[in-house]
């Protein structure tokens, strides 16, 4: 199929529909409004439904209902709205429902600003709401990847009966790049949704209940342990990352999404300066690619973590490197996107000013 020039937000929305999503519940917030706008325009054409909820709190609970009814369902928001959804996400994880969430991050805390940021990493990867659970988090760095990962997100959600988040930022949401849509087929072997509430006439009279309430601690512990067996399986089979230029690298930059692109430009500039720099780019933020660090740690002298935050993924990198090499951090926050020149300067300082 032909390449099409699309905005990131629209590409994500189109990918969702391509993956069979027919229901969207959301509330407007900058910088992700093209997603609900696209869905409100396109879903009715394919027999789906778009509902503009009264709040993100309501939107995520509509997602709960629709997911519990067996549908492929999407919601999207940006940081403050995702905070409001955390209660519902916890319930969805607890009730083991599949759904896809998109967070087009903006700068916080509080009302913050509307420019790009990556400061929701902790919230996205460590649970976010109350209780023991995780959300599988996919972080695209370009729009083709945003399309591919959004489609994959629906399969992974169905496979694990767990929320999957596509975590991007305002820059990826607003950016235009060519994207290509291939005919989509769901992954083979997805489990049937024989738990969905569709009325007992459809289940041979067997009552189906969607629920996250377990008042007896032993039952709840068993339930949580069962959920965590799924997370262990995710950690074994769903880790995704990219290594770029790491074979001879003295410094390995660790960055995801937008900052990984800027790191790439910085690596090219470093190459011209005679500096050997590589990139380790996590694509799944949960599960985090811990083992990928083992592949590069012997050859590299140091790691440089670059984020649009004050240092959140940094903690996971520390766990992965486990003291074997020094780790530096460079972060911009408040909606400022670091430049490749700034990153080059960090690398130069790390390597003792060589190549300046």
């Amino acid at each position: 199929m032909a390449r099409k020039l699309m905005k990131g937000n629209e590409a994500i929305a189109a990918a969702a529909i391509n993956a069979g999503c027919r229901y969207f519940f959301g509330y407007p917030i900058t910088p992700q409004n093209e997603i609900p706008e696209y869905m409100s325009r396109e879903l009715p054409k394919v027999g789906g439904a778009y509902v503009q909820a009264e709040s993100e709190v309501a939107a995520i609970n509509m997602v709960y209902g629709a997911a519990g009814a067996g549908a492929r369902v999407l919601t999207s928001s940006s940081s403050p709205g995702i905070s409001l959804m955390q209660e519902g996400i916890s319930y969805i994880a607890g009730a083991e429902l599949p759904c896809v969430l998109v967070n087009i991050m903006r700068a916080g805390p509080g009302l913050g600003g509307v420019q790009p940021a990556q400061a929701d990493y902790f919230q996205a990867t460590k649970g976010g709401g109350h209780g023991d659970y995780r959300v599988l988090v996919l972080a695209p760095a370009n729009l083709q990847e945003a399309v591919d990962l959004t489609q994959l997100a629906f399969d992974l959600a169905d496979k694990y009966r767990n929320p999957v988040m596509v975590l991007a930022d305002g820059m990826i949401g607003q950016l235009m790049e060519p994207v290509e849509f291939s005919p989509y087929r769901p992954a083979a072997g997805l489990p049937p949704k024989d738990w969905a509430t569709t009325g007992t006439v459809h289940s041979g009279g067997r009552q189906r209940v969607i629920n996250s309430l377990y008042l007896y601690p032993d039952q709840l512990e068993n339930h949580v342990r069962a959920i965590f067996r799924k997370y262990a399986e995710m950690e074994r089979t769903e880790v995704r990352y990219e290594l770029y230029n790491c074979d001879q690298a003295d410094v390995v930059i660790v960055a995801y999404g937008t900052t990984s692109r800027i790191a790439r430009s910085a690596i090219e500039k470093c190459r011209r300066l005679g500096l050997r720099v590589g990139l380790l780019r996590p694509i799944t933020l949960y599960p985090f690619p811990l083992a990928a660090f083992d592949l590069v740690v012997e050859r590299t002298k140091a790691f440089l973590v670059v984020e649009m935050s004050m240092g959140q993924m940094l903690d996971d990198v520390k766990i992965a490197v486990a003291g074997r090499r020094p780790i530096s951090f460079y972060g911009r926050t408040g909606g400022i996107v670091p430049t490749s020149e700034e990153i080059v300067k960090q690398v130069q300082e790390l390597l003792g000013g060589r190549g300046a």
Partner: protein
Amino acid sequence: MKIVYEKSRGLTDVPMHYCPGCTHGIIHKLVAETLVELDVLGRTVAVAPVGCAVFAYEYFNCDAQEAAHGRAPAVATGIKRVHPDNIVFTYQGDGDLASIGTAEIVHAAMRGENITVVFVNNAIYGMTGGQMAPTTLVGQPTTTSPLGRSRLGQGAPLRVCEMLATIEATAYIARVSVHNIPRLNGAKRALKKAFQMQIENKGFSLVEVLSTCPTNWGLSPVDSLRWVEQNMLPAYPLGVYKDIEGGT
């Protein structure tokens, strides 16, 4: 032997956890009978609240989803949009619907969402132990208004039917009571009408049922019924507040 009465097959065969004298059980029975009589039980999905009726999914003999506190109308919206042929109802108490879930109920009504809401108002928080509700009467003592609800600072009862009836897209709004047999029969008629509205795709319907809480009111079951008549009816007049078909 001739069977003159039996438990509705709209209810499961498990003992309910409700306190003696609480009218939740009666209201469950009326809803279950209605679903059976309208022949929709098999395609009904119930949405249970947080509150005393949190285990409603164990009692209604149909598919169900348990919602977060106050979010039942949003959950019901999600279910109904996916399967418009399902009959979807929420069963919510006064804390759930009239306090933490006011945005969800008002906006489900505003959208004219084609669902049915059973709103059980007993003027107190039962599950958590008798705290003040938005529907607590002025002067009524609760564990968080020990001197009685004061109009100054704690306000006065939120009248849900009156409020929702002002919303254009609603189809049927009624307040009923189950404190005596004639009222109970009226409540059944209202519930039937509300579900009929949904079956006919007429839009949002809500039946508020005045209920008792002998445990937290500190009254016997019989005195509780009398308390509904004497104290709740004046504050919460019964009647049909909205009916797009013009009935009363």
